[in-house]
């Protein structure tokens, strides 16, 4: 069905200016040329009418969209965006839950030189006002005046228009005047053909959706060409003739978007996309799709592997054959060795091989991937003495170390070629092997900073080219081990949350003593949970717990794992009055934090049953 890898690439050679640039700018890796921009990448694939992306919708219907069709459609959508008054370099917000419409609109913007700003669609249970506010904050931070949305999402997006920099809303229907198969020759729209350079911004990746001042990473085309080329060719050793990605990852997030849309477009690989919500309703569909499509590459955060193990019944595995899979990547949040082992064991009877598991480390500020283990390597973990980690030393555990005192840390592998990685202490001094410090990295994948935010940029993207990741780790035998964070960021299922946002939100509640709230993450084994500790100003503490749970769930989108109401004046503070999160967390974990309401879960004030 597919063209073999030996057949000539339909090149961008027919376009004068692009052709010479293609020769000049494309990098050769493992004998393959990597196009200089994502626009060149898709143009190069435009003659492929039998290779492309498969989009499965929530009803389970599959739409095949060939690379050729994507090229045509992107050109037309780009033209329409231009006709709406958007110029090269303008930003456009994209809130489109449907995978096919998202990708086509995103590529349409790129073809016009317009910078897409993907925003996550509204989640169930999330309060509308809070969602609209988030969309407004991201629009304001990016300067987007137009938002592209789908008819399904329009109802909850339009509230942000007029209340932020957003002035206009365009639906995907308006961008696609010829729904369904396009009648040959019936096209009255002249596709756009803008010149795009490797130094142009490709898109803005917003890394936290909940802050009042969200940060958008400026990802340049050349960052993407470098990183996609490296992780697809060097990291995954992709084989054009038979590799196929399968992903349910959200497309507004770097792992799904860069990993399964951009990486494959740069290197001519097909991908199959499932809605994230379909995976959440039952993880079988993930495996079933790999089986049906003979998928070879998939990726997921740690929590998803844990969820699959927890939810899959024996009958779910009947008839599945996962032997086609050669890469099962894991990233975006801390990785647990036990989870990967259990997953491999559970799925071994259906042909899954543990050597396909590929722990990795990366972040949007470095485009996507920073370190990978070898594509054919078994995942491995380092066993260290847990109590030494507090002193920032990763001492190897011995046979004498009691099992309860051993911490197991998964190897995330090595940095890519042309990239450097170091571990530094708080003063920036480079640390040696097995010393825990901040991970910093440098190289051509490092993005161009945060959009319109010089202060945040200066903090993370240093003048000497080093990206300060904010993550803690150590290096042993050349491999990176990630073991925590310098900053107090909370990561739940691959999404980043800042404790300050939660603290502010709870601090605004009437019975809470303002400014006396501390939020932090605790490990729940397969992901992290949020713990909120609040000093209460009144005596109705019992009613406060459900109110806090509800407020955080509604406005931030995660349910707190625990809420501790503590007596006034008992949360630890620095001499300047700043909350001491680490100290509070330590007190919480060793049981020395005084709580008014002993068990938050049983103390919820809920009405008596009627029917349960």
């Amino acid at each position, binding site marked *: 069905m597919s063209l073999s890898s030996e057949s000539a690439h339909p090149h961008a050679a027919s376009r004068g200016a692009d052709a010479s640039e293609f020769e000049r700018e494309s990098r050769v890796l493992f004998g393959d040329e990597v196009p200089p921009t994502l626009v060149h990448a898709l143009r190069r694939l435009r003659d492929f009418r039998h290779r492309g992306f498969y989009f499965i919708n*929530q*009803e389970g219907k599959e739409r095949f969209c060939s690379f050729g069709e994507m090229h045509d459609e992107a050109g037309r959508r780009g033209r329409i965006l231009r006709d709406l008054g958007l110029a090269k370099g303008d930003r456009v917000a994209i809130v489109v*839950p449907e995978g096919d419409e998202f990708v086509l609109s995103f590529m349409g913007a790129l073809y016009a030189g317009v910078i897409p700003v993907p925003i996550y669609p*509204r*989640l*169930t*249970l*999330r309060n*509308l006002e809070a969602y609209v506010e988030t969309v407004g904050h991201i629009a304001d931070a990016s300067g987007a005046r137009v938002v592209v949305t789908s008819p*399904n999402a329009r*109802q*909850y997006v339009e509230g942000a228009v007029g209340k932020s920099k957003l002035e206009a809303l365009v639906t995907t229907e308006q961008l696609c005047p010829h729904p369904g198969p396009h009648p040959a020759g019936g096209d009255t729209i002249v596709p756009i053909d803008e010149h795009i350079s490797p130094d142009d911004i490709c898109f803005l990746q917003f890394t936290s959706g909940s802050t009042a001042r969200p940060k958008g990473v400026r990802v340049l085309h050349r960052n993407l060409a470098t990183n996609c080329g490296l992780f697809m060719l060097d990291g995954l050793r992709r084989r054009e003739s038979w590799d196929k990605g399968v992903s349910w990852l959200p497309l507004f997030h770097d792992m799904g978007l860069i990993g399964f849309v951009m990486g494959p477009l740069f290197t001519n690989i097909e991908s199959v996309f499932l*809605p994230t*919500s379909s995976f*959440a*309703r*039952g993880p079988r569909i993930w495996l079933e799709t790999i089986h049906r499509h003979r998928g070879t590459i998939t990726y997921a955060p740690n929590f998803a592997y844990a969820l699959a193990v927890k*939810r899959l019944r024996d009958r779910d595995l009947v008839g599945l054959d996962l032997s086609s899979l050669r890469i099962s990547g894991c990233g975006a949040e801390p990785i647990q060795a036990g989870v990967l082992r259990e997953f491999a064991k559970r799925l071994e009877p259906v042909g899954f091989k543990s050597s396909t598991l590929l722990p990795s480390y990366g972040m949007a500020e470095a485009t996507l991937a920073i370190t990978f283990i070898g594509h054919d390597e078994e995942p491995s973990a380092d066993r260290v003495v847990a109590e030494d980690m507090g002193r920032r030393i990763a001492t190897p555990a011995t046979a004498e170390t009691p099992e309860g005192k051993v911490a197991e840390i998964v190897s995330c592998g090595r940095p890519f070629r042309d990239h450097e990685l170091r571990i530094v202490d708080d003063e920036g001094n480079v640390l040696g092997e097995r010393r825990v410090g901040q991970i910093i990295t440098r190289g051509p994948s490092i993005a161009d900073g945060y959009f319109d935010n010089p202060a945040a940029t200066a903090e993370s993207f240093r003048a000497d080219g080093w990206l300060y990741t904010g993550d803690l780790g150590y290096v042993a035998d050349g491999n990176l081990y990630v073991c925590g964070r310098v900053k107090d960021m909370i990561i739940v*299922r691959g999404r980043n949350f800042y404790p300050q946002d939660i603290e502010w939100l709870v601090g605004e509640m009437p019975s809470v003593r303002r400014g006396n709230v501390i939020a932090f993450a605790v490990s729940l084994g397969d992901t992290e949970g949020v713990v909120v500790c609040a000093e209460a100003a009144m005596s109705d503490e019992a009613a406060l717990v*459900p109110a806090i*749970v*509800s407020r955080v*769930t*509604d406005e931030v*989108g*995660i*349910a*707190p794992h625990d809420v501790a109401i503590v007596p006034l004046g008992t949360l630890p503070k620095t001499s300047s009055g700043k909350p001491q999160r680490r100290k509070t967390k330590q007190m919480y974990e060793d049981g020395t934090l005084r709580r008014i309401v002993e068990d938050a*879960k*049983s103390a*919820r004030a*809920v*009405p*008596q*049953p*009627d*029917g*349960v």
Partner: protein
Amino acid sequence: MTTNRTELLTLFHKMATEIAEKEFPPFTEQTVISDLGIDSLAMLELVGAMERHFEIRIPDEQLVGITTVNDLLAVVEKGIAAARA
């Protein structure tokens, strides 16, 4: 198969307990789902379990405005009615 509200509420309780792996305090149809510590992922898992149980489909769009237990049960009933039609 007829399913009344009481049965549906019992089923919701049973499935939510299994998914969240914890005991819930007594609740009513008016209880706000997020008060129970159920977040978006748990909610989708719950919907998936309901869909498999009744062999129905509940589109994502119908889940967006859900706040209370009653809201969820109403979309499940709608799904059951649609499947019968």
